[in-house]
């Protein structure tokens, strides 16, 4: 202790130097195990993905012989050829999912921004009443049957709208995120814009929208992931296989493979790449998520933190 007192003057420095003091043997051992545990958990999170990718490139015979594995010596692209072949439904489903995701995310973000902005606006006299109006649907839901009947009644059945509108197109949670974010912007900005003669639409879309970029990026990704990974709407509202989104096709892949192998010829027909096809379809389904991963990570982390701290 006396040694520290001679070299460090302020109590602040003392504390800091104590925090970063040379660690004891016990602490070094502890630190080793911390790193080990974290590394093992991280590996456990990644290994199944390695398995999926490896198996998707493995010859079917080798899978039957050796089972699912992290290594192979029998590489093959047969599953991918089959997936992009003329009898495959995968490209079409990819299009369906992409359309639903892009259109849905765009509409959803616009709707959510509009409502969040209005709820944060002090000019809006009924903002508390409106919040309550939205809040009620967050705590009470009438369940599956009314949801199904309403969807059918508005025509969201067996078409692209069934994949865009029900459940996914607006989330009050995201709206409250926007509201809290806008609440954090000084009101004086709104006032000065008003004094300068800007109309409400102009203030919302030309002044506030650009300022809301961080929170909008977050909700865009929330919605996009929601659309991309959704299969429930298809399970409930799609009967036409041509309208199957990717996740639904993947969910029903067994029957898809059976249907495809009937259209195959000769040797391929005898032993179609079933397991590899399943994994290859999983790989292309994960593709955009892997590509966008740096953004996803950044903005989901932000969203989690914005959501946790009330503005």
């Amino acid at each position, binding site marked *: 202790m006396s040694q520290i007192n001679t070299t460090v003057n302020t109590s602040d420095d003392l504390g800091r130097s104590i925090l970063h003091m040379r660690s004891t043997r016990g602490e070094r051992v502890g630190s080793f195990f911390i790193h080990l*545990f974290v590394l093992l958990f991280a590996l456990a999170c990644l290994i199944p993905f390695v398995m999926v990718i490896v198996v998707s490139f493995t010859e079917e015979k080798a899978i039957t012989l050796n*089972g699912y594995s992290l290594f192979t010596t029998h590489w093959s692209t047969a599953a991918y050829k089959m997936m992009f072949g003329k009898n495959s439904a995968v490209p079409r489903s990819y299009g369906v999912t992409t359309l639903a995701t892009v259109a849905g995310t765009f509409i959803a973000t616009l709707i959510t921004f509009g409502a969040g902005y209005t709820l944060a606006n002090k000019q809006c006299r009924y903002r508390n009443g409106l919040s309550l109006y939205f809040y009620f649907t967050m705590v009470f839901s009438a369940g599956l049957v009314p949801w199904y009947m309403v969807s059918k009644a508005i025509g969201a059945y067996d078409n692209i709208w069934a994949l865009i509108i029900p459940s996914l197109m607006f989330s009050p949670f995201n709206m409250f995120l926007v509201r809290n974010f806008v609440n954090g912007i000084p009101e004086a900005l709104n006032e000065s814009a008003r004094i300068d003669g800007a109309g409400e639409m102009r203030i919302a879309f030309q002044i506030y929208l650009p300022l809301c970029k961080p929170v909008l990026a977050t909700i865009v990704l929330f919605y996009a992931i929601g659309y991309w*990974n959704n299969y429930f709407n298809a399970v409930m509202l799609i009967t036409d296989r041509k309208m199957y989104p990717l996740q639904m096709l993947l969910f029903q892949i067994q029957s898809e493979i059976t249907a495809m192998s009937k259209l195959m010829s000769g040797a391929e027909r005898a032993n179609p790449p079933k397991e590899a096809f399943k994994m290859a379809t999983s790989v292309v389904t994960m593709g955009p998520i892997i590509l966008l991963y740096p953004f996803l990570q950044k903005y989901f982390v932000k969203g989690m933190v914005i959501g946790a*701290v009330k503005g």
Partner: protein
Amino acid sequence: MQKTGTLTPVKKGRVNPLREIWDKKFLYLLALPAVLYTFIYGYMTLPYIAIAFEKFNYKTGIRSPFVGLDNFTSFFKSSWAWAVTRNTLVINFLFLIFGTFFAILIALLLNEIRNKPFLKLTQSAMLFPFFISWVIVSYMLQGLLGTANGMINRLIESLGGARINFYSTPSYWYPILLILNIWKNAGYNSIIYLAAITGIDESIYEAAAIDGATRFKRIIYVTLPLLIPTISVLTLMSIGRIFYGDFGMMYAIVRDNASIMPIAEVIDTYVFRTFKNTGNPSLTMAIGLYQSIVGFILVYTSNRIVRRYYPDGALF
């Protein structure tokens, strides 16, 4: 801060609602799509609740013959009523307790890591499963546990053991579901705890260090107590949702596997299956209403508690 006068000050007292909306029509117009959407999917669904008390007929729709509580009686008489309630509660409690534990553990461990590249890489890896759909996860699980080709069964076999038929043995499934839940969500859920830990004033740690607290003791006596508000809010919110199963997860993983259904069928999947198999909207609506009412009481109560004791944690 001095409040500057607004150009159109919001007057106190009553105003004509139509006048208010007309004056700020563009502002209300911005909220209109969300209001309409919420009306359709939130409020227009309410009249359909009547179906639960009727013998539904597609011709007569909502105005089908009234049968009182018949639909409820037939649900509560079946052995599934108790089974799905218990399964939903047990599975959610397991997820809540172990999920919270692992999320906090990971946050605490990540907080101890000083090597930035290592931290970044491992954290990115841990978050990744969160973004992957349950359908894909279900195929990964089959790849691991499958009886014929599963990696784990092949490993057991190569070590001289006998293959385990996971997909027909119910007793394995609570641990499996729990591991899946932790694997998929713990990394993501740890973010919020990590943010809370990062927000703790460093001078508290310095004071503790001066008083002779080791790193471990600083975690136990400083970090954990200061995390209690965050833990409480998140736990209360989860308790509020305890009556709702994760349909996306459970249906993708369990599917129509009758041998694990007795322990893994939750209310949500049961409602769906009843609708699909019996095609009886009245019975399905009755089961759904049971879930909605109990669920509402739990969600509402937990939200009230959070608002009362941790006003910063409540979203509304």
